[in-house]
Each structure stands twice: as C-alpha cells, then as structure tokens.
C-alpha cells in the first residue's frame, strides 16, 4: 500500500484537499481571461501560472468544470498521425502525458497500453504504411504489423468474417494509451488554483466589448470584466463564441457518440480500433469497455443520443470481438465536435489582436490537452506563436495550406 494512503487512514478526521476552490466573486479585470473551463483552458492556465508567472487569470466555465468534451471523450492518447506537423505536435502531447501524474502530483492514470488499429482493406494497409513511415521518421513507436502479429497483440480479435472483412494487418502504436480524462482537468485546475488562478464555474460568456481590433471586456452573466488577453477554448461551441467576438470560423459541428458496458474483469489491454468498421474499443481501469466510432453524419449542435448510432457501434464491436455479444451496455452519451475541413485544430491568432484561439478540436482534442495548454500559454505570454503551432493557424484556410489528417482521424480520434 502506498504510504500516502496509510497517512490518510491513520488520521482521525478527513483532511480536505480543496482540489477545486469554490467559485469566487469576479474581479473587475484580469490579465488573462480563458473562456472555457475544459481541459485545454485549465492546462493553459496551469502553464501560464507555473511557467510564465502569469497568475492574474480567470477561467470562465458556463457549466461545471470540464463538463464538456473533456468529460465526454473516450480518452485516446496517441501520435500516429499522417503529417509531419501533426506527428511533431501530438508526440509532444504524448510525452507530456508520460510525466503528467508526477508533474501535477495527481494520478491521471496514463496507461500506455498501446493502440492497435486494424486494416480490413488494401487501401487501409497502404495508409498505415504511410503513417508508420512518418511516425518512424519522427521518432515515435509505430509499425505496420501483419495478421499474425495482430493475433499475438490482441488474441480476441476476430480475424475473418467470411473473407469480407478479413483482418489484413494493423498499425501498432506502442506510444498510444489512455488517461483518466477528469483527473487531467482536475489536476491542472488544482495546481493552477494554487497559484492564484480563479476558476469560475456556472459563469457564461455572453459577449465581448471591443475597441478597434482588440477585446477590452468580456461580458458574462455575472457581470463584465476587463481582459488583457483572451483565450477561447470552448470544445464544441467555438462557432458560437467566435460569433460573439465578431468573426467566423471554418467549423461545422457534429455530434459524436460513445457508450460504455458494465464493468468486467480485464481482458482487453490494448486500445483496439478499426477504420473500416468505424469502431474502437478500450477497456478502462474500472473494467468497463468503452466503445466509440465516427461522428454522426449530420451537422447538429445537440448532445442527445441516437439509437441508430448505438446499433452501428454495437455491430462494429461484436464484429471485432464476437464474444462481446453477451456483454451489457450501461450508458450512452454524446458530445459536440467542432470539425475543421482538414481534421486538424486551429491554434494561435484570431482576427483580433489580443484574442487567441485553441479550437477546432473535432473528435481528437483530449490527447492534445497538455501540449495545447503549454503552447497556448507560451503564445499568450510571449505574444508570439511558437513554430510547432504555426501550421495550425486559422489563416491556413485562406490559402489552403492545410494539415490533412482525415485518414488518420476517422474512427480513432
């Protein structure tokens, strides 16, 4: 038993940790206002306060802390992308996850059990080869494996369905893993708050006051506050918030659904996904099997579940691991994903001079929580966009300098 637990147990009274301070009154002004109290906003606040010495920061969250996509995603962490720019960025994200529990003194349960993506067609094998080559070039742990190796890595995979969806091979990404999503947000919140960052839950941003190309004030349902710099990081609502700020983003919102089974004794170690089946499976530390897939086919801003998607995900899961037919589903939910045309995020400058963007995270934002937070904090603190973020500028859409990740994102997130 770890020593820390012994200490708790031997105390007579519970000593509260105060991880998340109660929402304070709003001050009149802040150096930095972060719109959105999800993982990204909290991580940015952590890095602003711990690395850059900027502590006069308010995080405004319209609901409860990290209750949007941070709470709803299926916690895949990986870096097996298609382009050089993406691999460089997400690789830094993975490495930050590796030390996060220690950095925060809060167990985020990063579990690097590896991600195995299956190919059921030649075309998918070709794209895996490309991703593996790019990943190797960038120094990540990734390889294309044949059908035999797939069975060794994950003996439960159904290799053959009358030949139609035969598993031809896979993409084995040893760096891939999962983390406890809430813990990531809480860990950042706790440590940011210790430095004086204010977390305002149930505080909705309703508009901005501007002077020329600068935002001067943020208007909330609890009053108006002056802001030196503003960071927008609002998960599935970026179109709406940008509209409040007076500009448009190349974002379309689609619901993304996922579901979870009852807890079971461990049987699935790796993160298992199939691009062709539009399904992925991961068994959490609690033993639940989390099942997800692609976004809904129609644009919608709603977190309501649909039955059709549940049927499709179940069919995919039972396809991949047939014995799951006997396992029972416990819960189904949905988030809203802000999709960009190239399946890559938008980070950096906005049309306003002191207003920064961290958005367009589609279905893949969780894994970027630490690196986006770190790099956005650097951007805000220095006023300069670091090299690693430059490919993801909003302006890329004006001249189509896109960072295409459609093929590496589809059903793996």
């Amino acid at each position, binding site marked *: 038993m*770890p020593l820390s*637990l012994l200490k*708790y*147990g031997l105390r007579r009274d519970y000593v509260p940790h105060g*991880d*998340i301070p*109660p929402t304070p009154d709003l001050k009149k002004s802040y150096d930095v206002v972060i719109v959105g109290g999800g993982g990204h906003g909290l991580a940015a606040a952590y890095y602003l306060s711990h690395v850059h010495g900027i502590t006069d920061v308010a995080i405004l969250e319209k609901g*409860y*802390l990290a209750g949007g996509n941070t*709470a709803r995603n299926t916690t895949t962490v990986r870096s097996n992308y298609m382009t050089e720019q993406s691999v460089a960025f997400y690789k830094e994200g993975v490495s930050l996850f590796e030390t996060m529990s220690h950095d925060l003194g809060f167990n985020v*349960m990063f*579990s690097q059990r590896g991600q195995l993506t299956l190919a059921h*067609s030649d*075309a998918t094998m070709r794209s*895996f*080869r*490309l991703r*593996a080559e*790019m990943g*190797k*070039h960038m120094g990540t742990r990734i390889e294309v494996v044949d059908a035999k190796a797939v069975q060794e890595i994950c003996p*439960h995979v159904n290799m053959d*369905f009358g*030949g*139609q*969806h*035969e598993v031809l091979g896979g993409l084995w990404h040893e760096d891939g*893993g999962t983390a*406890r999503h*809430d813990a990531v947000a*809480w860990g950042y919140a706790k440590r940011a708050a210790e430095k004086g960052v204010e977390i305002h839950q149930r505080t909705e941003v309703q508009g901005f006051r501007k002077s020329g190309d600068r935002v001067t004030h943020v208007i909330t349902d609890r009053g108006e506050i002056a802001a030196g710099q503003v960071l927008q990081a609002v998960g599935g609502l970026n179109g709406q918030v940008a509209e409040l700020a007076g500009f448009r983003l190349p974002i379309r919102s689609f619901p993304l659904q996922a579901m979870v*089974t*009852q*807890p*079971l004794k*461990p*049987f699935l170690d790796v993160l298992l996904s199939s691009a062709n089946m539009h399904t992925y499976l991961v*068994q959490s530390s609690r033993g639940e099997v989390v099942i997800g897939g692609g976004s809904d086919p129609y644009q919608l801003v709603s977190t309501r*579940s*649909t*039955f059709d998607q*549940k*049927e499709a995900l179940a*069919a995919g899961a*039972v396809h991949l691991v047939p*014995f*799951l*037919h*006997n*396992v*029972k*589903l*416990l*819960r189904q939910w949905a988030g809203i994903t802000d999709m960009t045309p190239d399946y890559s995020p938008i980070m950096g400058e906005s049309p306003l001079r002191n207003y920064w963007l961290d958005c367009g995270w589609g279905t893949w934002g969780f894994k970027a929580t630490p690196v986006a937070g770190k790099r956005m904090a650097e951007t805000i603190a220095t006023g300069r966009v670091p090299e690693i973020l430059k490919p993801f500028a909003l302006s890329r859409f*004006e*001249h*189509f*300098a896109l960072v*295409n990740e459609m*093929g590496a994102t589809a059903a793996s997130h």
Partner: protein
Amino acid sequence: MSSRLPQPWGSRIDRGATLAFKFEGRRVAGFEGDTIASALVANGQKVLSRSFKYHRPRGVLSMAGEDANTLVQLGPEPNVRADMRLAADGMVVSAQNVTGSLARDLAAPMDRLGRFLPVGFYYRSFFKPGSRAWLKLWEPIIRKSAGLGKVSFDPPAADYRKTSLHCDLVVVGAGAAGLCAALAAADAGIDVLLVDQNPDLGGALNYARFDIEGKAAADALRDLAARVQSHPKIRLLLAATCNGWYADNYLPVLQGDTLHKVRAAELILATGSQEQPLVFRNNDLPGIMYSSAAQRLMRLYAVRPGERAVVFAGGLDGYRVALDLDDAGIEVAALVEPADEAPDAGYLAAVSGRGIEVIKGARIAEAHGKMAVTAIDLRLASGEIRRIDCDLLVTAAGYTPGYQLALQAGAKLGHEDETGHFTLTNVPPHVHLAGSVAGHFDLADVRRSGATAGRAAARALGADVAQETESAPHPSRHANYRSDASPHPKGRDFIDFDEDLQAKDIWNAVKDGYRELELVKRFSTVGMGPSQGRHSALGTARIVAAATGRSVAQIGITTSRPPFGPEKLGLLAGPAHHPFRLTALHEDLVAAGAKMMPVGAWWRPAYFGARESAAAAIEAEVRAVREGVAVLDVSTLGKIALRGPDAGLFLDRFYTMLHSNQPVGRVRYCLALNEMGSVIDDGVAYRVSEEHFHVSTTTGMAPRIFADMSWWNAQWQMDVDIQNVTGAFAGLNVSGPLARKALAALDGDIDVSPEAFGFLDGRSGTLAGVPVHAMRIGFTGEISYELHVPYSKARALWQALMEAAAPLGIRPYGLEASRILRLEKGHIIIGQDTDAMTTPEELSMGWALSKKKNFHLGRTANRKRGEQPMTRKLCGFQLDGRPGAELGEGALVFKDGRPVGFVSSIAWSPTLAKTIGLAYAHPDDAAPGATIAIRRFDGRNLEAPVVSPHFYDPENERQTL
C-alpha cells in the same frame, strides 16, 4: 419446499413445476416462475454476492433489479440480475466479485482497510515510484480488483432478432395507471401497445398493499387485467423493457433476444416509482431490504424474507408491509415510526391490533451482524439505544419516480421540499405521465390519472374525447422520509451499494472541491455502477444539497441517459448480417477459375488460376491484354443516368470539364473536385442523346457521387433527373489489340470499324442481341470497348463473346492485372494515387479544368490554391529489378532530409521488365531526368530516376488505333 408460504402467496410460481440449478456448486431447488434470487432466498441463501470495493456480503435489496447486490455470473454471461432473471432447470450460477468463496471471501479484510481508501484515493496515490509505476505496478492490480463479471471468450451464439412495430399509442408500464390508461385510450378507438418489463400485468397490484383489509389491489387487478386482456385494441408486450426514449417517440423494447423498434405517435409513461434505501450504519447487511422487496418475495414468489422482522415505517407503506408480514405468519418484533405520531390512525390501530409493538419517535442507529443482520440498534426519542434481535429489517423510506424515460424525452426534474419527492415537469408534447411517476400514490388517484392520460393521448390522436383537467396528486400522505444527511462517525452507511460509497465519501468529495453534482459523481463514482443511480441519486442529492447549502431541487440528479436498463450488445448488433454484392457475371467468373477478393461490399476477381501460381497467372493476363484480347468485369463501377434539358449544364457544374457542348455519341473524361479543390473522383460521361448522359464513377465513390449530385440538384434546381443505375447495368471492358475483332465477331448493329467508332466515341445498339452502351475507353492503353448492358442480359453477352471470340484466344482478366496495366499506362487510381489534398495540378491534369466556363465545384478553391507555390507533384519513377518487401506503397519521399511525398503506386511491370511507380515528390524533382530519394521500410535510402508516368506507349498510339 415447505418453507414457502401457502397459496395465494406466490402469484408467479407454478408449484407443480419444480426446477433445480447450481449456485456456487450447491443445488438450489425452485419452481417455474422463480427468479434466481427468489429461489436462493427460499433456500436460505441470503448472501448473493460480495461488494465491489470492500467485499462485504450483500443480499436482496430491491428485488427489482435496482442494485448490483444481486448481479451473478450465469454460465458465460456476466452481470445477470438475479432478482429479474427467471430461474431455469440446469442453470449454473456463480457469485461475482468473490475471492475464494462467497462465505469466506479472502478479500473480506478490504472492509477493514476501508479507512485507508478515502474517496478518490486513486487520484492521490499509485503513481510512484518512477514514471511507469501506474502502468506497470498499480494499474494491473486495480484492474484485476475492479470489474464485476468475467466475460466468456467463447459464449454460445444467440439468435438475436430485430423487428419494427408501429402504433398510435405506447403505454409503458402495466401497473394500475398503465392498465387504466390503455383501457381509456383503447375505449376511444386507439390502437394501444402496452409494454411491461414484468411477465404479468398489474405492476404493484401484484405485491403491494393499498388498504388495511388487503383486498383493494387484488380486486383492482382482477377487474383491470380481464378488461385489458380481452380488449381488441390492446396489444400486450410483457417481459419486455422499453429501454430508452429517442427523438420522436422512437422506443427500443427488449424482449428476450428480440429487439422491437417501436415508433409511437403518443406515449404514456406509467413507469411507477423506485423505492429508496434507508441510510444508516451497516444498512447493506443481507436481511435488510425495501418494503417492496419483502412484499415481492412474499406475494410473487411465496418466499419468507425472514423469520423475525423489524419494520421501519418512514411512510404508510411501512404499516402496510407490517400487515403483510403478519399475514404471512412472520413475527414482526417492532414497527419503528420515526415521527412522533403515526400518519394514519386506522393503520396504527390495525398494526397495534395485531399485537405489533409500535415504537414512535425512533430511528435506526445501526445494524449488527456479520454475514446477515442479527440485530438492530434503535435510537429512541429519549436518546437511549435499544437493541432488537431480528433477521429481517424492512425499510419503507420513500420513493423516487421512474423518471428515466421521461427525462430522456426532455422532462425536467424538480424537487418538492415539503414532501421530499422528486417531481417531473415540462413533459414534452406527445408524452404523458400517469400514476406514481406523476406523484399519485393512492390507488384511486393512480387509476384516475391513468384514465386521464389515456384520454388525453386519445384526444391528441384525434379521438372525440372531451378535454379534462388533470387532477393534482395528493402526495402529502406519502411524503418521503428524510434521514439525517450527516455521515455516521464510524461509516458503513451506504449511499451507493454498487460502488460501495458511504455518506462520508459524498461529503468528502464536496469538501475536496467537487461541489457540482456531476463532479461529485465523477470524483466519487456515485451512480456510475450498474444500477445507474436508481438507489443512490436521491441520497446523493440530499447530501450535496446539505454540504453546499443549496436545495435538493438545485442539485437534482445527473443527466439520465439511455439505456434504461442493461442491454446486450448482441441484441443491439442484431443478426450477424454481412451484406455483400455479386456482379451479374459472378458465376461465370468463378467457373473460369477466378480467385475472388472483397472490394468494399463487392466481390471481384483478383486473378484467374491457382493460388500457388498467382504471379504467373497475373503476368499471363497482362500479356493477354497487351498481345491479344481479354475481358475485365467492370460492373462495380458507379453508373449514373442524367436525363433532361439541363443534363449537360449540370455536369458542367459538377465536373471540371465542359459537357454541355459535348457532341452526342462522344465520351468525355469526368473529374470531380470537392469544395476544397481536391480531386475526389473520376469517370466518364457518354452523351447518349441530347438530353441523356450515361456517367460512370469509381467503384468506391458511386454512392457518394450520386448523393452529392442529388444534393446539388436540390440546391441548383436544374431541369435534370438523376438516377443511380449502378445495379441496373453490368459492365465488361474488352481490351487488347484484338478487341475490335472480338466485338466484330458478335452479331449486332454497332459498326466497330475505326472510322465508325473511334477512340472516345460511344455507341448504343445491340451486340449478340443484347442492348448495350458501348464506349471506346479503357484503363489499359490498348484498344478497349467498355460495354454497359442490362444486368439481366450480362451473362448472355459474356457467353456470346467468349464463344465468338474464342478463336482469338479471348480470356478474362482480374483486378491485379488491371492494376499493373493501368500503372504501365500511368492512369491514376483515385484514393490510392490521390489523398484528401490532391489537386489536379499535382496530377498534371490541369488540362481537365475547362477554361470555357465560369464555375464548377471546387473552382474557387482551385484558383486560390493555384496562387500558392506547389509543394508536391505526382511523378513516375522506375527501378531495375523487382521492388522486394522493403519497398512499397507508403514509402516516404524526401528532399533535403524532410518528407515531401510518398510512393502511391508501385509494381513490377512484366511488359517493361522494370519496377515502375508513381510518387509524390517535390515539384523541382518531379520532371523526367531528375531523381527522387525514397526511404525504404528498412530505413535505407534509395535514389530513383524520374521518368514520364506514362511508362507504356506515352504517345497513346495503341489505344487510339
């Protein structure tokens, strides 16, 4: 089984039909109609499982599937609710979450260690020492101790079915309210589907007591059930669970291994209510159960829940269950009335009259016992503790409404502070509530509210029923008991039995800063277990309210999400159908020796011949095309017919080339861009007549192109009809220097002479008596005729062609040869030689962008992208010798140490006796004469000379002959 109560107790069991099953290796006898749990309790088995975290013994709590206490492993099936699943002869049942045996659980000391495991403990520990301690050391331990049932890797297959049902009105819940609702609506002429998860009609009428005499329920049930069962407008779905609400009353109903998908115009939710546990120290000991659980055991299964009972009467139902227990001959040692006065003098007199001691102003301080309750301590009004020995504690502490479906439909949850009840408001249109879910508890109220809801639904469906106002509920007589929300200093006062959470855990979560209910849930895991908050939501809300100084209404419950109850993935997945498509020629191809391969949903011939000699077979097929004549089945290509005066103009907008000026009888290449200006498909358009174009697409993109065309046609409102005729036409591509002779050998009215039928011409007529669209196009670079014929005629044409051209040596060829042939000719494959960013210019296909029109899809983007420097270009390269395993598609192309592109196609060319390939390279390197740096899969670099991508016959002399 003499321990069973005599009839009429046990409405569900058939005493004439005995059964036996195994539980933990021990034989358990029961009757048909027993659940696993009722049979176990009847056999004296009070402990059914061990708890999740502390491995405490657990038994029946709700008898209604509202707790994880009764989850068992049934053969290969984990997490079966023993209080819901019918027992069957020969079943093998085992307890879950047990280390060692159920009676002597080796992990039971976990209970003592509980103090070392405060709420959220795993966030504060288990990540040291070293950066991989969680992954390598702690997580494996935690994962093993987490999880409930064991999944079987080899479960027997099940025959899952899906059906669709439609009806005017669905009534969920066949209790008193649901029965009355169904009858009222059916009497008004409405088709009603009545759904209940129980095998019998009547809901609580089967087990609950509604009056002192104990007659009202049975009388009501007899009357209502008879009328419902004989009503021609009512269909019954029993033992069927409405497991969720989806938009527009779309209701999945689970019945055994059948999933009924029901669409209802109107919906009445008569889902009843869920009894709630009383919170006190050791409230989880086996032998402590809800009043309704004791009633269910007795009335439904004739099972004695215990021998000496104490009843906690936090409401009227406590008095009722005391009377029931006394009726059953079970000693009631005391009835504990927490208030100073009884709520109803009649019941008090009835209970006292039976000689039952009523102790007023007292509450339960704690329970004692190791494997089951043996005594309880009461804290009397005086403050003294009084111990009473008992083996059964029945608690009546109040209810929450069966709110799940209503909340999924959009209703709002409120809380009535006066009565301590959750309430449902803002019920959306086409959904009605009836009975106790709407706060009605007196039987007359329940029946009235059911009938009112039934008539309201009938009226909404157009029946001639007078408007009436809904009667308000009278819940004050049925207020929920509210215990002190503060935690017991020594703990073990469980809020969430599934997750082993005590009152202090919720308090401490709030103290740690998790002040919002959702955060409390996420931090403590309250409500996340199999029963999804059914027995923990109210208790949690009360504590969070008390701890944060807010009202219970402000706290509420966490979002209610489907499913309502557990549902098997297999049932959702349905029968294992793997739809696939075969072309019209499938049998002929197989007969000709084809090795078939899947291409999307299609099966297509890879090559013809034995698997061992595949490479030789493929080379022979290539040679046949280059030197003689061979046929490829191209039936899988998308085919779209566009008809109307605007057909050409429509294609002008959709594709990059100009089609409106395309002469009749000509075929023109089609290139489709998306709005980003990227290439998404190609094909050809044959102008059959002035107002008719026959367009082909690639195999994979056929549905998408048709959908896009339909979408744009709706936007543009042009005078054109678009029809997907992919399945209506089969396709044969006859290719090779002898192709013309092969076609000439067929009877028909199409003149195939080069003068009459030149390259890129299209002709419609008959060949071998088969109507055909013939086009002089191909992928191979040889003389090619693509013949599109009606599906039903394809075999006739195939057989005629094979026969007539046999002297020419005609033969079929497959996809593998086709891929080589097209590569030799430098034709791209969309999706392989293109990616989501590919521009026509990168493919050197700028020629396909018509300059004579102002608009086509993707044109704006194409122009903007043209203003930027090109970053890559597709080029041809060649190598001596075969490529080997270390070089293939996906290999990166570098320039100055950075990846600039990749190999998209590579193959050994039997015709040229070289390895040839296409690759994206830096534009500076993409012209013939340059070299590109390719990195092999083994990391070695390779310099490859760049050549024209048209490796074979670059002057196009052969195909135009």
